[in-house]
Each structure stands twice: as C-alpha cells, then as structure tokens.
C-alpha cells in the first residue's frame, strides 16, 4: 500500500532520472565502448539520501516530519517548492571532519572551540594535518585513489612468469612483495605532499619511493624485454654477460652471496641453498639454466624460489629487512651507449639514489603496481592503461560524446576507423591518447625499441573536454599534458569530496569549483585542497549548496578502511581488523578478525569507473560483521582475559572511554551524559541478568562499538 512518502519518493526519483545522474556525462548504452560513468550510473533509481527522498514535510509519516531547523524552503526557478535545508548538527560536522582526516574523535576542547566559532575549523584542520594519524590516513587515501593494488596473477602475467612461482616469491618475502608494490606510490605521493610540492607531480615525478626488491624487479624487466606479441627481444644482460648461467649448490664450500652476485666471480649466479634439499626432491643440483630461462630463474632465486628442476627447498635469503624499506630513488633513462643498472647489482642498489633503466618511468601510471594492475595486450594495445591513467589523473573516462577530431586521422586503429562502427566514438579519441604509451612500451610492458616504432604514428595526442589537443611522444609527455590540464584540480576536488561524503558531490557545484580554484591557486598544494574542502559546506553541510540539493546530506555507514582505522586508533590496538597482517593475536584468531572485517564494504574501483563504489546504507551483513568484530575485541581485550585493556574495576573510566573514544562523543557534548547513562544502565542490567562483571563490561563495550555513532560517517 503506497503512502504519501512513497508518492513523493516516486515523483522525485523520476525527476532526478530526467536530469541525469548528477548532470554528468550520460552513458550511451548503444555505443558498445567506453562510457562516461559516475557514481550514479545505474540511473539513481533507488532511495538515495537527497532531501526529496526523505519524509521531510510529508504528511502521515509520524510525529517527526520535518526538521526543527528547517526553514529555508522556498520556490525554485521552476516554481516548485524547494525542500527545506536540513543542516548537519555542528558537533557532527566537526566529528565527521576529524574522523575523516585522522580516525580520531574531537576532544572536548576542540568541540567547544568549534561550537563557539566555526571559523576555527580551518586552524584545527591545519593542526590535524600535521599529525602522524593524518599521514597514515593520507597513505590510505592515496592507496585507494592511485589504483596500485596488484594480484599475483596480474604480476605473474606482467613478468611472464608462472603464478605459482610468483606466489612463492611473495610468500617467501612474507607478503612484502605485493604489499610494498601497492604502498610504494602512496609513499611517493605523501613525499610530494610533505615537501609541499605541486601535487600534479604525481603525474610527472621520476623520483619514486622504492625498495631494493622493486629496484631489482624494474631492472629485471629491462633485462628481459618482450615485444608486442610477448616474444623475447634481445637481452642486454645476456649479451654483456656470456657467463650468465644460473644454478643452485649444496655440496662443497658454501658460496658467499657476494660471489653469487659478482659477474667477475667464478661462482657468479651460483646460489647456495638455504637448507638441505628434501630427499624427495629431484637430485640434480649441478644443473644450470641458460638464456632467458636463466634470467627467470635468477629473478626467482633473488626472491628465494629455486628453479623447478631442484624442487622443494628454499633459496638463500638475499634481501634484508632494511632492503624492504621504501626510500626515494630517481629513475633515469640510460644515455646513448650507457648500460642500465643490472638487476643483480643488489649491493650497489642498497646505497643508490638513482636507478638507470632503459624504459622510462614517470608518474603513478608507469609504476609496477599500475602497470600490472591494468595489463594490456596486442588486442587492447594500451587503451585500458591509457583510460585508467585518465581516470586517476584527471577524473575522466572516454565518452563517445567527446568532440575531438584528431589532427591525424591515421592514428586511429584501422579496425575502428570507419565512423559507422560502434566503437569509432571512443577510438577516435582513445587511440591517439594510447600512442603516448605505445611510444614508450610494447604491449608486454617493455621499452619499445626503435625497431618497433616504424609502424606507430610519430605523434600522440591528448585532449579531454574538448580542449586543444596537446601533442607529444612517450609517457613523459602524457604525464605533463595531464598535469597541465585545467581538469586536474577539479578532478582531485571531486575525488576527495566523494571519499569524505561517501558519495559524489555535484561536479557543477560552484562551491566545488571554488575549492578546486583555491587548490590551483595554491600551486596545487594538497593540504590546501584538503583544508578548503573539509571546511566547506560541501562537507560540513552548514550552508546550502548545489551538492546538497543534488545528494542531500549523506550520513552513511563507514567504509571498511574508516571503521578499521578509527577502531585501531580509538581502542589502541594496532591493525585491529588485521588487514595488514599486523594484529598481534594467534594466527587463527587473526584470520577471523580479517574475515569479519571483510564483511564491512571497502572503497573499491571498477574498471572504467571514475568514482569509487561505496556502500550507501547499512545492510544485514555489514552490521553483523561489525557486531562480531566488536564481540571478538570484547572477548580479547575487555574483561578478564590474558591482557585486557580494560577491566570491570575500571568501570567509570571504561564508560568514559566508550562514549568519548569508541563512540566519538566528547565530554561536554549535549548527548554525552545521556548516552553514558544508557551504557551504565546497560551494565547494571547485564549484571542483574546474571552476567559476570567482565561480561557486563564486554556487553557494554559491544553496545558502544556497534552503535550508530560508532559506525556512521556523521553522527
């Protein structure tokens, strides 16, 4: 049976669909190629959080229809009655901002200062951005936005290696291989922020945070190049080192690692095993591999995976713990006649601030992480990499409605050159763009030699939003073109706005344009962007904006990253969700924490999606997952366990902790006393039901931990 709220909902939904999702590019479903998509690409046909979807002002909806603060309703230009403005309570706005930036709740003093003078938020934000909590949060945000997560399968394909062996390389590095590949560019971006360099250097930098294993891998890719079809190209290592034969040894005198890695040594590339070979393993330790197989065996041995002809033993430890630490390394292209760094020059790499390569690496879109996350092939021909680079760099994906006639029609793939083909709309723009990548790399990710340049267009072109095409060659020119485009600042304002609100802000909002302009005017200082954004009514919802009219005032479930971060910090338990594998509990219990935390939806990106997928409503499984995480925390650290953080005798302090830290409601907040009273009553009632004091403490904590304030973005 439909009621008044439902009729208003249906009408407003239809209206929003006619306007198009957030006014962004309308997807042309028939085009059959890349489309302009945004966070509401499914048509926004469901109950969202815009004011038109609430029961504000509706009749028959109960006794709380309308907000006590509503009063800005009026007529729109169309003559329709405007929905009243429903601001976010100031205390909630402050908590939302500080939690987003640090994972911590406001202190009582911070809240009092903000309530007395909201302008103080700017200086508060500046202060929070100087904390280590913000640094960690920034790393997390960059990790989400720069799309550097790589899987075993993808990395194996990028290396042209067997996934099981790459898994072995990762396992024998205790997971650090994949983890540091994923983290490297976040650290690089943070360096740019910390040094107050223009943030668009994420597109143009050639100085990356790398560790020795990654340097080895980049150098190895140069040593084992492949062409567009994946076939081997000549290897400079095999040409320069005719004694390159790889083997493992166990009999005779142990071979020092210095000899193994020294091309002048008789024991060059002879690896002494770390332990006695298993009796079941094939006993052919004196065999050697040569040629390309030797290159592959050498790489695997550097990560402790012996050649398959030896079988089930472990190679020697090459990398120390210090080698896994990230530090700034500049990647330079070798000059004419100059040899690049050999992948086995590990001792030299330890002290080097520069790595000489044959391939050019610049910006986030040429890293190990990005390149292997977005693999290409001789059918796709770097189009996917180019499009994803565009998405991350300037928040655009290819839309058939983009108007751009390439300067040279011959740059379009002949298979799609016919304007009558369904794919022409995208390919006329995408093909000239992907040529930047083709100039630098084969489809296998290796440096493209001159011998494979003849069939390529000499010039690539970059243009979005109808801008004047920028021509160039190679990835360096592409990075510069994106960095210099007017779209850069708005794109990053939009990205952050989406993360803060867990839903997209209206890209046409003048306030968002102001924030982007302030970012650009500050020489693209990232902290300026953050400050301007989070102190803006786009986030605090203390004034009406176009974004408010479009999306309302979103109060949404926290995403996995924010829930885990805030709980880790507020409870004082490192990596409480065990997403980094750092939770100090028995392995089985750690797996349970992680499995449950994965029931809380993360921020995720899909291929060709400009905006992230974020959950917009609590659902049965995410709520259940949080409840169970809270239960495990309670059982492990509250009460009478082995190493409790809180015991029942600490009742008053524990209650203060639950209200102020766990729920993020500072002392002095108008809600604090009432909430504390309820938790205290719960404690007593639990005891009254026969619970032990420890269980009463646990149950009270679980109530606080799973409450709406503890699990929302803005309560």
């Amino acid at each position, binding site marked *: 049976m439909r009621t008044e709220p439902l009729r208003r909902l249906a009408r407003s939904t239809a209206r929003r669909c006619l306007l198009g999702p957030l006014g962004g590019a309308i997807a042309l479903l028939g085009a059959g190629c890349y489309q302009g998509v945004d966070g509401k690409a499914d048509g926004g046909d469901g109950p969202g959080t815009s004011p038109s979807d609430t*029961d504000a002002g509706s009749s028959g909806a109960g006794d709380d229809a309308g907000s006590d603060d509503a009063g800005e309703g009026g007529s729109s230009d169309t003559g329709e009655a405007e929905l009243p403005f429903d601001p976010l309570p100031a205390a909630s706005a402050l908590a939302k901002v500080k939690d987003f930036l640090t994972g911590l709740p406001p202190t009582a003093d911070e809240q009092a200062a903000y309530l007395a003078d909201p302008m103080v938020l700017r200086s508060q934000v500046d202060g929070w951005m100087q904390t280590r909590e913000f640094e960690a949060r920034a790393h997390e945000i960059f990790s989400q936005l720069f799309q550097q997560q790589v899987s075993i399968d993808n990395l194996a394909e990028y290396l042209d290696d067997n996934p099981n062996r790459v898994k072995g390389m990762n396992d024998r590095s205790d997971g650090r291989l994949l983890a540091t590949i994923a983290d490297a560019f976040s650290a690089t971006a943070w360096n740019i922020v910390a040094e107050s360099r223009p943030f668009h250097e994420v597109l143009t930098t050639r100085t990356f945070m790398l560790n020795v294993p990654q340097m080895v891998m980049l150098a190895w890719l140069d040593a084992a190049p492949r062409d567009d079809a994946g076939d081997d190209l000549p290897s400079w290592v095999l040409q320069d080192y005719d004694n390159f034969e790889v083997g493992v040894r166990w009999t005779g005198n142990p071979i020092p690692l210095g000899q193994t890695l020294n091309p002048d040594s008789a024991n060059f590339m002879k690896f002494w095993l770390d332990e006695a070979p298993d009796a079941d393993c094939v006993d052919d330790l004196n065999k050697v591999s040569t040629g390309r197989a030797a290159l592959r065996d050498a790489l695997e041995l550097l990560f402790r995976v012996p050649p398959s002809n030896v079988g089930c033993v472990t190679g020697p430890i090459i990398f120390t713990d210090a080698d896994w630490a990230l530090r700034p390394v500049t990647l330079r292209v070798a000059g004419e006649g100059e040899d690049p760094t050999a992948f086995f020059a590990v001792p030299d790499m330890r002290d080097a601030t520069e790595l000489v390569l044959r391939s050019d690496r610049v910006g986030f879109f040429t890293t190990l992480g990005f390149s292997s996350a977005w693999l290409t092939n001789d059918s796709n021909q770097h189009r996917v990499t180019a499009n994803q680079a565009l998405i991350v760099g300037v928040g655009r994906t290819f839309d058939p409605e983009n108007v751009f006639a390439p300067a040279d029609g011959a740059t379009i793939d002949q298979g799609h050159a016919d304007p009558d083909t369904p794919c022409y709309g995208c390919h006329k723009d995408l093909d000239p763009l992907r040529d930047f990548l083709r100039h630098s790399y084969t489809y296998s990710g290796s440096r493209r030699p001159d011998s494979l340049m003849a069939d390529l267009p000499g010039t690539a072109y970059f243009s979005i939003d109808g801008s004047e095409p920028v021509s160039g060659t190679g990835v360096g020119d592409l990075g510069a073109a994106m960095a210099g485009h007017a779209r850069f600042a708005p794109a990053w304002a939009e990205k952050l706005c989406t993360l803060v609100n867990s839903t997209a802000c209206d890209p046409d909002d003048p306030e968002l344009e102001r924030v982007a302009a302030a970012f650009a005017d500050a020489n693209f200082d990232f902290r300026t962007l953050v400050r301007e954004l989070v102190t803006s009514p786009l986030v605090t919802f203390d004034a009406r904006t176009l974004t408010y009219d479009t999306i309302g005032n979103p109060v949404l479930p926290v995403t996995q990253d924010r829930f885990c971060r805030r709980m880790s910090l507020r409870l004082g338990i490192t990596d409480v969700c065990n997403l980094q594998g750092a939770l100090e509990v028995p392995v089985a219990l750690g797996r349970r924490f992680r499995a449950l935390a994965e029931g809380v939806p993360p921020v995720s990106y899909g291929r060709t999606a400009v905006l992230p997928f974020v959950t917009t409503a609590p659902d049965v499984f995410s709520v259940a*997952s949080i409840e169970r995480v809270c239960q495990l925390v309670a059982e492990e650290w509250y009460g009478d366990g082995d190493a409790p953080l809180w015991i029942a005798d600490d009742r008053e302090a524990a209650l203060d902790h639950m209200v102020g830290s766990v729920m993020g409601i500072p002392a002095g907040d108008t809600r604090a006393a009432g909430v504390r009273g309820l938790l205290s*009553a719960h404690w007593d009632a639990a005891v009254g039901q026969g619970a032990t004091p420890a269980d009463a403490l646990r149950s009270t904590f679980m109530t606080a931990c799973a409450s709406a304030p503890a699990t929302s973005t803005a309560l």
Partner: protein
Amino acid sequence: MTNPMNRRSMLRNMLGVSSLGMASLATGLPAAFLRQPLAHAEDDEDAIDPERAQYLILSGRDNGDPFNANVPGTYDKPSIIHAADPAMAGAALSLGAVSTTAASVWSTLPQWALDRTSFIHHATKTQVHGQLVKVLQLLGDSYRGETIPSIFAKHLRSTLGTVSTTPVPVGAVNLSFDGRTLPQLKPTTLRELLVADDSPLHDLQDLRDQTLDDMHVLLRDHGNLAQRRFMNDHANARADVRELAEGATDLLAGIDDDQPSAQISAAVALIKLKLTPVVAIALPFGSDNHADAGLAKEAAEYASGVGHIAELMNLLEAQGLQDQVTFASINVFGRTLKSQGTKGRNHWSKHHVTMMIGKNVNPSVIGGLVADGDDYAASPIDSMTGMASDGGDIPYDEGLASIGKTLGAALGLPDATLDVEVLRGKVITAALAV
C-alpha cells in the same frame, strides 16, 4: 524513570513488534515504511505461483570468459576453434530428448541436471570489461534501469519468505541493487557470521538491542533528518541480523578460502537459510584470454568451471534444494569463435551464451550462429520453437532482453510482471518446461 525492561515489554505487548517496531517508535516513521519503502513488488506476491518460485544462483564475470565457445551449437562449424585438450573435444551430449554436440566435459554434469539445462545463443552487445552491471540491466531494457537479479529478488522475496531482498554476491561479481553497487560478501566472512559460537555474550543480545533503541531515541532528538534516516536503516539492518538463522554449519564450517568451491558452499548456505532470493558467484571459464597460446588456459578453466557447476548440482541435490534453485550463467560478453590471428580469443559483443539449469527449464539449445564478417554472430530466434531463424520473432537486438524475460519466467515470475519489468523482448517459451 520507567524501568527500561518494563517499558520495552509493555510496548511489545501493545504493538506485538520486535526491534523494528522499536525503531519505528524511535524515529516516528511507520514500520512498514522502514521495512520496504519501495516494496511495489509486494503488490504482486499473489501472482507468483509458489510451486514455480525459484531461488537463483547466478554466475557472472566481467572478464569476458569464452563460455560461449565450447557449448552446443559451436561444434557444427569447422572454422570455430577449440583447444586441443580432450575435455574440449566435441562429444555427444543429451539434454533430455535433445541430442547435440558440445565439449566433452559437459557430459560430466549429472544427467538429471542436463535434463533441465538450456543453452541460449544471443548477444550482450558490449565488449567492454566492467559492464556486467549494464548487461544485467539489459542495456537499458529493464524498468528504471534495475538489474535483473534485483528485479527477480524483489519479486521473489515474499513468496520465498527470505530475510532480505538484496542479492548477495559471494564471488567478485559487480551487482547493483536500487542503484547502488553491492559489496562482495566473501565465503570466509559468511562462515564467521553464520557458524555459531557459544559465547555467553549472546545471552545479552536483547539487552544490547534495547539499549541501542533507547540510544537512538536520545540521539534522534539531537539529530537532523539524514541522521535519523541512518538510524532507521541501522535499526532495520539490526532487526534483519537477529533473523539470521544458524543451520548451515555443515556447509560453512569447512570454508577456508574464497575460491569457487567455497562460493558454491556459501551460496547454497544462504539459500538454505532463506537469507536472500539471489546469490551471485564467479566461475572462471577461460578469463580474458587474449594471449592464450593453444587455448590452454581456456581448456583448464573451462573444465574446472564445468566441474564447479557439477559440484553445485550435487550439493543442491544433497541438500534437497535441486527443485528450488535455478542456476544461470551470464557474463559481460562472449569471445571470438574463429581464429583471429592472435594466440587466444578477442572480445566479441555479437555472441554470448546464457546457460540455465532449473526445474522450470526445458532441455534445449536455443538459437544459433550466423556468419558475420570474420566470425559468427548470434542469430534471431523463434521464441516458440527455439530455432535460429532469420525471420524469428526475437531479432538479434532483442536477444539480451529476451534472456531477462526468459530467466525471470524460469524463476516463476508471471508474464504480466515480466512485461512491466523488461521493456522489450519475449519469453523464449521453447526454453521453459510446461
């Protein structure tokens, strides 16, 4: 001050409601509105024959797997390439009374499942990764752009009596519901949620719920509408959590990863517990095999994929659910059938095969192939006979929409409902059992 327990008991007695009712009181919104604000589907609950209503386990991937390349209909044209692996060699296959030829591995499915299997040749009309959601929206032919899993779930929920309407992707499948993307719910997470533990803290759950309800009443007075709405949703979800039954320990306890076998166990568990009408899994059938020399990866994954379907069928039968659950496979696009001069297969928007296995499914091979440039495309279909027919009443362009209608019919949705929810196409009656 009134004792909270007595107050709660009093209200329960007055209203006969659980936490949902408390949430309604806390927020001032009707419980019915809290529960299903867009429950237009419930108006149709009398129209679904309970005897025909089916749960759906849907396998779908954005990788563009070459599922279409080794099914009935692809072995009568010599120019269509198959891997040399014996599992991919053409062999006789019986689908009920229909004799056909397909990759030999298909014959490893239980015969009772093959006797209720239909392979439908059509096109998804896209060849872009990441567009599975668009395909499930029938590329604009679904009402209000809803995806067919969501449409089916909304209509089936009441008849099946599930706790939740929302489809659950236990595999990495991009699904949306009411316009929002659904997060993956991994099998390992489900194991933790649904396998009981003996903690004494469970005895205090009602007390915690009461405290949270009281807390929401307090917070409501300090909050704006959006915050109240969040608390409504939170209360709603908590109420659903309390209805999560335990009773699938046998299916979940052995889960220790999130691979296809675990997804299958999790999917069957969710259905056994009547948690949702629709579950999505992700079974690989060759993946994005552009550079698959000798189609070796395709052969390996295809055999494994068919093996997983067999595993699912056997598990459903063991749980007594084989007549209540329909399985379907829909991927984002198919792949080229003929050699294109590359090592593997390329994206191909013009041919895809949907597979359905279920009680209401007629064993059949629907549609076929017609030459199209350097490859083959899906042919028009005669909806009554299921034959490929140039003059068929389901033209090429309506094949995908017809898949939506046909699958919906196989799940028990009546024609009138399907005509509202799917804007074009026809039910392929030849694919349905009487």
